[in-house]
């Protein structure tokens, strides 16, 4: 479920450069970081607010919903039945009051209590986060391996190989997660029995879910890398390396690749957020625990505190990842900001 969009890079690069005279790199990086942190906080506040009010728009009376979730029966309720629930969750407060209490909770790390599980939301998320983040990281790592191998093998090898190479990129990038996941499950778990059918959290169980996320991501990154790669191959330093008698593979790996992967680095930060989205589908197909399945269950049963918690958490992950990428990017290639 990769999001069709530009990465951050073009927007940042296309924006007007700061007019200031070239300050020391350290100071500039410091200011960049401070500005970034401020905007990160704004983004988090905004995300949490959007989630809070979106859920307020949900149909139905909240106390009825909570009672119905707890009893597992969908029906109308009498005021006497609802009274204790309203009192327990403070639903008689005004929306504004609820919102302020909610924000106060966020600041001190209290996301409230799940309607269904009677547990603090932070405990639920803490329990599930590791599984999803592991999946995301493994998927990103696999996609890097796939991408690097494929691009190194096929880029700049003439029109035919190039066409096949970029054709595969496009196909891979266009594969829907749900379909790819089912096909992998059908072939390698149900058919060949190479991998367990139930994902679980063991090392063997993560292969297919991670591949499901990694293959489209690899195709996606390969598209960005290939262009750079082919351009780098024509650069003078490549020619000189070749003239020094360096082998083709060595040139590709040691010189060209380093220059070509910058866009993919940017994408990786973005991908962490995107794979979280994909995790919703993948966790459902492979019966894996994680944030995705928590989210689907919570949305399905209107467990509002959990939904808001997941949203805020995902926003945090996104913001932190992009902050890290921004910094890494500036450090790897200081020209970016000033070009």
């Amino acid at each position, binding site marked *: 479920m990769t999001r069709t969009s530009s990465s951050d890079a073009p927007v940042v690069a296309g924006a007007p450069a700061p007019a200031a005279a070239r300050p020391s790199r350290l100071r500039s990086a410091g200011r960049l970081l401070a500005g970034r942190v401020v905007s990160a906080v704004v983004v988090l506040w905004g995300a949490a607010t959007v989630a809070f009010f979106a859920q307020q728009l*949900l*149909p*139905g*009376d909240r106390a*009825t*919903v909570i009672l*119905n*979730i*707890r*009893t*597992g*029966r*969908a*029906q*109308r*309720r*009498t005021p006497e*039945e609802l009274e204790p629930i309203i009192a327990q969750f403070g639903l008689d407060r005004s929306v504004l009051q609820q919102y302020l209490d909610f924000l106060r909770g966020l600041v001190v790390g209290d996301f409230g209590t*799940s309607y*269904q*599980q*009677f*547990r603090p939301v932070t405990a*639920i998320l*803490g*329990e*599930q986060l*590791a*599984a999803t983040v592991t999946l995301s990281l493994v998927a990103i790592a696999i996609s890097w391996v796939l991408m690097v191998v494929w691009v190194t093998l096929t880029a700049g090898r003439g029109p035919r190989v190039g066409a096949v190479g970029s054709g595969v990129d496009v196909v891979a990038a266009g594969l829907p997660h749900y379909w790819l996941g089912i096909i992998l*499950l059908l072939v390698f*778990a*149900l058919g060949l*029995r190479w991998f*367990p*059918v*139930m994902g*679980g*959290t*063991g090392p063997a*169980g993560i292969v297919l879910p991670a591949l499901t996320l990694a293959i489209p991501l690899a195709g996606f990154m390969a598209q960005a890398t290939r262009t750079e790669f082919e351009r780098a191959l024509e650069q003078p330093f490549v020619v000189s390396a070749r003239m020094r008698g360096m082998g083709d593979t060595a040139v590709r790996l040691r010189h060209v690749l380093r220059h070509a992967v910058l866009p993919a680095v940017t994408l990786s930060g973005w991908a962490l957020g995107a794979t979280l989205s994909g995790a919703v589908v993948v966790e*459902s*197909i492979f*019966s894996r*625990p*994680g944030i995705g*399945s*928590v989210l689907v*269950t919570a*949305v*399905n*049963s*209107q467990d509002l505190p959990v939904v808001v918690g997941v949203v805020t958490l995902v926003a945090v992950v996104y913001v932190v990842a992009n902050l890290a990428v921004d910094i890494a990017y500036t450090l790897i290639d200081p020209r970016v900001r000033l070009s």
Partner: protein
Amino acid sequence: MRQRPRTTLPLALGLTSMIALSGCAAGSASSSSGERVEGGTIVYAHQQEPPCVFGGWIEQAYLSYQVLDNLVSLDEDGEVVPWLAEEWSASEDGLTWTFTLQEGVQFTDGTPVDAEAIAYNFDYWVAGGNSTAQVWLQDYYESANAVDERTVEIHLKAPYPRLADNLTQGYFGIQSQHALETRSDEENCAAPIGSGAFTVEHWTRGQNITLVRNDEYTSWPANAEHTGPAYVERIDWRFVPDGTTRVAALQSGEVDAVYDVPAVQWQSVEDGGFELHRYITPGRPQQLSFDTKEGPFTDQLVRQAFAYSLDREEIVGTIGHGVIPWEGNGGVSQATPGYSEKAAGWYSYDPDRANELLDEAGWTERNSDGVRLKDGEPLKVVLPYGAGSILNADGAAILQGVKEQASEVGFDVELVPVPQSELFAGAYSTPEERDFEVGYWTSVTAGILYINWRPSTEEAPNYNNGAFYDDPELAAIILEANSTADVEAQNALYAKAQEYIAERALAIGLYDRLSTLAVDPSLRGVWQEHAQGGPTFYDAHFVQ
């Protein structure tokens, strides 16, 4: 995240069986079948994860049944037999029930299972501690009190001779009073304290619950196959929503038993040498109730026409692959005591009759799509259903068959799959919003009719009355049945109520809800409890 490395379980199992094997090697080779292995972990894949171990969902009853004991148990002949209660009796007027408890039973927190604890549990359920127990008891329950340590009295407002039968369902599991009073909601939700054969060890949300053997277990039900603690040491109760995945996991040996085998895979599982259990849940079947308050189905002729337009046997037979039985009775399923064959057979597939009835009801015109019209209004009816919750994929496919067949005689049925969140928010709960209610409700007796058909009044609304049919005559029959002590007379009255429902086409049956299990041949002694078909692992053991 506290995560046990997955590999240790099969490894440990493998080791035990190897040790056991080498032990047997000295004996005869023929001992390869049926020799019981002590201990081990049963890996069981269930379909849905409940929010708490104990509660009013059927998923919860199945789970809490391993951890909590009931007062009484139901055996395979439908007889109520002792469990925590040794004996019980009702007073002459039927208003007081006396239960005498087994001696010396303790909850796993060390407190005694005494009369006071039982009385406390009754009050707890009725106050909402278990929503399903609550609806069963609330109109009859007066109070409970401890007479002495081992004797508890339950006082009723009106006679309810089948009280003990109802108490066999998992919703009536007895918990430690001490635990309920002193522990937080969160703790009681995740790991209720009972006196059962297993205790909750750890719940990894989204994945599994591990149950560990209660080595001090003394209170097995009278219909169990052995005495003493359970044979296996642990149950790894996994949550695997997808049926195909569950079956594949069973076939590849990843799990030892699975719940709810998809009908389409029944044959291949059977051919694979797995042991299959099929339990038809008594109570309300998967049925269609018509909205008798608003819309076209206020007209009895239209309801009957709808019933005649369907070949339910064909639809269910094909989608259910011969595993899911079709059900004609809209009141109770064929597994329920007091089931009326007559009510079940009231409507057979007869499109001509359906067309006649619709003509008679004034739906004479048809538009270009073949939908009947009356005063220019099309015969459009809305059928919302809980997709993925109340109805599984097979159920949804069956409804598509209903829609198609009803369209032949001129109904335009709009199927609306409703996510659970919307159902919980009260969508499609009023007569204006829908024309059908679809759904089931498990129950040991036909007393379920009271829950589904009690008239709704201003003071005591009954939102479980899906047909919105507030009829004192029907209610009187059911109430009389509820309080009739003689089983045959009671069943005759319940049957009369079903026929009343059938004659007026207030509800028609579709198919019977199943509880199915598939078990690996290396695991023996798993049985489905007889109150609503949940898996019971107390007697289960591995063999080699």
